[in-house]
């Protein structure tokens, strides 16, 4: 029997697989495909202080082994999420991770405080949003802003906080350390790489917002590299994501140093993907001579024998 359990701050996971934020809505649509209780956890779509409509359409574009999105954090606002969406999710036997977003420090605090009194098991702090007060620079690319917003969110709520790092930085370790110093309980990495596609026929960016976030297998090597770097430098557990489509991808993330993984845009290709990966994981672990998920975590760091 392969042990797939993982214990993380606030998250007792029966398996290490969860859908990534923004790629699973609030679970409703996927509940028609399988029982959500199978999931290790669910990372729900970003919540902001008030309802947001998001960007103009088109909001997505296809790329080689990936896609761009610029949804613009569309969501019904934190109150509606707590009132309607969390209520819907409550019966399922799986922990919920709420994704916290905002444009100002106050936004983040307000959302975190409200979710702090909700049924969610942990918060995922999405710091890839532009900080309006600092002229649009992202919280996620400035270690001081990242430190401050993490600290404020930790103060605003008693829930464990996973800071979701942006890959659009020169030095991911500095960002991870800033989060750690501010009291983060874990890291979630990575968010999307900023990209663009231009349509040769219309001569314009395909996405109305011009730029969008790149996700999918295309970014997996960048995510693996960053997790591998951060695992060596900080002591926080990492939830890894970026292009996961197979159990081998999951094992690659765990070996790099992730303690659990999230599956994002692959849900669009195959709505059953999370369930399928969870079902296949024990056999995949056995095939690689592992007897538990815990045993795999960080394995690329202490292996010294060569084959």
């Amino acid at each position: 029997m392969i042990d797939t359990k993982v214990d993380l701050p606030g998250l007792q996971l029966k398996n290490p697989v969860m859908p990534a934020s923004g790629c699973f809505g609030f679970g409703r649509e996927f509940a028609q495909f399988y029982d959500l209780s199978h999931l290790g956890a669910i990372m729900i779509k970003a919540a902001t202080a008030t309802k947001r409509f998001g960007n103009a359409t088109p909001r997505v574009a296809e790329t080689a082994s990936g896609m761009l999105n610029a949804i613009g954090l569309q969501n019904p606002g934190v109150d509606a999420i707590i009132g309607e969406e969390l209520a819907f999710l409550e019966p399922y036997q799986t922990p919920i991770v709420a994704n916290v977003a905002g444009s100002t420090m106050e936004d983040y605090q307000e959302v975190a405080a409200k979710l702090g009194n909700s049924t969610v098991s942990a918060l995922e702090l999405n710091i890839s949003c532009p900080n309006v007060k600092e002229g649009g620079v992202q919280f996620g690319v400035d270690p001081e802003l990242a430190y401050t917003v993490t600290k404020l969110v930790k103060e605003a709520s008693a829930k464990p906080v996973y800071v979701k790092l942006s890959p659009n930085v020169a030095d991911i370790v500095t960002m991870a350390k800033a989060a750690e110093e501010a009291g983060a309980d874990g890291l979630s990495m990575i968010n999307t790489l900023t990209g663009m596609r231009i349509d040769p026929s219309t001569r314009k960016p395909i996405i109305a917002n011009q730029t969008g976030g790149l996700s999918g297998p295309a970014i997996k090597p960048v995510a693996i590299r960053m997790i591998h770097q951060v695992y060596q430098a900080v002591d926080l557990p990492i939830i890894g994501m970026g292009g996961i489509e197979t159990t081998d991808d999951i094992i690659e993330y765990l070996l790099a140093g992730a303690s659990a993984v999230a599956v994002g845009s692959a849900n669009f290709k195959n709505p059953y993907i999370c369930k399928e990966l969870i079902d296949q994981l024990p056999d995949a672990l056995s095939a690689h001579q592992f007897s538990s998920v815990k045993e795999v975590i960080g394995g690329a760091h202490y292996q010294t024998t060569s084959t």
Partner: protein
Amino acid sequence: MQREWMTIVAHQSIASQTYLLELQGSLPQFVETPGQFVHIQVSDDFFLRRPVSIADVDSDKGTVTLLYKVMGKGTDALTRKKIGDKLDVLGPSGTGFPIDKLTTNKALLIGGGIGVPPLYYLAKNLKSKGMEVTSILGFRSSEDVFFTEKFQALGDVHVATNDGSMGTRGFVTDVIPQVDGYDTYFSCGPTVMLKGVKEQLKGVPGYISIEERMGCGVGACFACVVECADEEDAKGYRKICSDGPVFRPEEVVL
């Protein structure tokens, strides 16, 4: 909605760069209304699925018919699939024309180009409910025209082509004034066409089917939203992939 590896039982060119694809499986038995679509994974080479309307359903054979035009890499790759091949299909998706709630006597169908396909299954449904159907079908040129004879079997048909190579020269909107007696209209086509139709038929009850680039196709990712015309609307938006693609013209901002 389900994911199914459907078998290709027919695949042929029916007009310039336009193909008919017939897929067999259990999916057809779940189709609820005309106007619904399927979401096709053309091959592993593509990261996103392609939405294509259901143009016909044959419950006996257990097939859906799709009509698609080559617009880019995905639809181009689709043309190379052969009879007997399996295709990864998600569906039936979306909310179609509410045929059970209609009190229509005479329907006006207005389709433009690759907006024509869902109207065929709609026409069949309306006809079988005893309603009268008149269709205005617009294409770029005579070589792009398809399915007119099939529509003719269900009612009057008016064809318009941009270059006048078949039917009326011009747009579907140039033909609408020639038709009368209808009490409800149903339209699908490019956004500019839908805008023109909506404008011209203001006051007439209608339904339009609209397009947008999709991520999930199941209502989870918010890629395909359209703004509500009513600024007081509680949500303020509709998802084309799940609330639509069919809407009342007055419901959404085109």
